[in-house]
């Protein structure tokens, strides 16, 4: 069952946040989410997040783009209408391959880049008119927020978070 109550601990320094994350992890509490105004180097490692696989998807999209370019030009230039254009050999794909390389390259990059970006948007649920999810507007400016689920242990958690240097600890009821 999902906890309906969470604690929001607010920090105002990324170094303090990092040590707080390590401490909370050491105490074996589950961190639901962390909101920061900028990327904090090493935060994903400290939280124990799995590494991203988006580079792998990009590689595969690149291969798709390369295949599209090859199949497209092989059909158009070699199979469908092998015309003599300025004496270029259109007898087989390989013979005229150097002329196709710029397109093959660009299509590879195009597919790899754009499909990876779209993948990123889908996986991170970002689109126009999407309702912003940040619990506290200050987290987009100069504050860091750590969200921890509460399972009847608010007192203990509050003490722990205060100890780690939180400037503010709020109990939030998500039920309504």
């Amino acid at each position, binding site marked *: 069952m999902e906890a309906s109550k969470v604690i929001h601990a607010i920090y105002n320094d990324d170094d303090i946040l990092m040590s707080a994350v390590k401490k909370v992890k050491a105490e074996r509490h589950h961190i639901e989410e962390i909101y920061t105004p900028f990327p904090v180097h090493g935060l994903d490692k400290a939280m124990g997040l799995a590494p991203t696989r988006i*580079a792998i998807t990009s*590689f595969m999209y690149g291969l798709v783009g390369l295949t599209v370019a090859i199949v497209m030009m092989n059909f158009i230039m070699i199979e469908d209408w092998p015309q003599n254009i300025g004496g270029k050999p259109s007898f087989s794909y390989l013979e005229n391959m*150097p*002329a196709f*390389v710029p397109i093959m390259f660009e299509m590879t990059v195009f597919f790899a880049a754009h499909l990876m970006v779209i993948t990123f948007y889908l996986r991170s649920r970002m689109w126009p008119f999407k309702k912003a999810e940040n619990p506290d507007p200050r987290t987009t400016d100069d504050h860091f927020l750590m969200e921890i689920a509460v399972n009847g242990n608010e007192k203990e958690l509050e003490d722990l978070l205060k100890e780690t240097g939180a400037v503010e600890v709020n109990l939030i009821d998500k039920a309504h």
Partner: protein
Amino acid sequence: MYTFSNKLKTSSIILMVLGLLGVGYGFMTSHKSFEEVEHLIASEGAHHGGGHDEAAAHAAPSHDAHATDAHADDAHNGADAHKKHVEHVQHQIANRPWSALYVAAFFFMMIALGVLAFYAIQIASQAGWSPVLFRVMEGITAYLLPGALIVLAIAVASGTIGHYNLFVWMDPEVVAHDKLIQGKSSFLNLPWFIIRGLVFIAGWSLYRHFSRKFSIAQDTAEDNSNFKKSFRIAAGFLVFFIYTESMMSWDWIMSVDPHWFSTLFGWYVFASMFVSGITVIALITIYLKSRGHLEFVNENHLHDVAKFMFAMSIFWTYLWFSQFMLIWYSNIPEEVTYFVSRFNDYKLPFLGMVVLNFVFPILMLMNADYKRIPWFVVMTGLVILFGHYIDIFNMIMPATVGDRWFIGIPEISSILLFAGLFIFVVFNALTKAPLLVKRYPFKKESEEFHY
């Protein structure tokens, strides 16, 4: 301090001795008499007819000379053509040990030069990751002075001691019959070639000498004045380097085909030397680290060097393809002969090197985790080095030996000879100074480098 292990020293000396023997054997067996060559061609003709037309298409200068002669005495055309053909093949066979020696000498020289350029870039850009590798780079560049002098000496000797075995424009007989070379003779003449070569070598060696001196002086200095000096000369050297490297590639490589020219050739040779140099930095670093001499070098440094290997392999391919595709596309006869002779007679090395220098590194080094695994980088590095040897081979051999190429005793022995010399000089230089710079302003950052 690093000590040159006896085992490595003995191996380098064995390499040099074996190489010398093989090179000597190559020179001894390359002098064929007219009758021997005639016999050789006849026996080859029996196997696969039509070697005659193919060979006549090579080495344009002798072909031109042949054309003018043939017009003069049409009556003796048949006998004369046969004589010309045999002499042509005889010359190609005699060129082979010279070319093999020259390719290997240039290959190892260009590694040292590429590392010197990389070193200067690291200092001029104030890189924070690489100072722990500076002493390795300085060790490798110690080979530059002897290596470059050897390359120049072989080039000059081929035109003075030898029978114009590498550069046809050195042959007054050829120049007399060749309008195109005559037009270039104010640039391509032996005294000016030697002076230019010595200026290049002097400039590079002076930079190497002073950068090394300031680097060692910085170890015991009280302030950063040596660092500032090395920064300034690095910036100056890079300007000098990009001019001289370009001219060096016209002189020492492009002029083996004096009828052909390409504008991005200097960059292309630069890409080849740069990626080979970076690869050798990686290989020597991994070797020294495996022996426990570089405990301050970690996998993050290896990752960065491997990234450079990866990126520069692609850069090399970009230039290789740009040069090839522009000439292939427009197909202008005076330019395209360069690639026609390579495509007809050198299909495997010419296309094989694209696999070795591009396809293999791009697949092996794309993954970030693989770049941190020493044996993976070593394996890819050896393939890259072999690929760039083939690259230089493809630049020199078609102009000198034509279709008479093979990677046999002369070629392998020349590689062994210069590999032995390279190892000897480089590891000897590594013993001369501590392997970690002291008091270098970015030393701390480099030691803590984390990617």
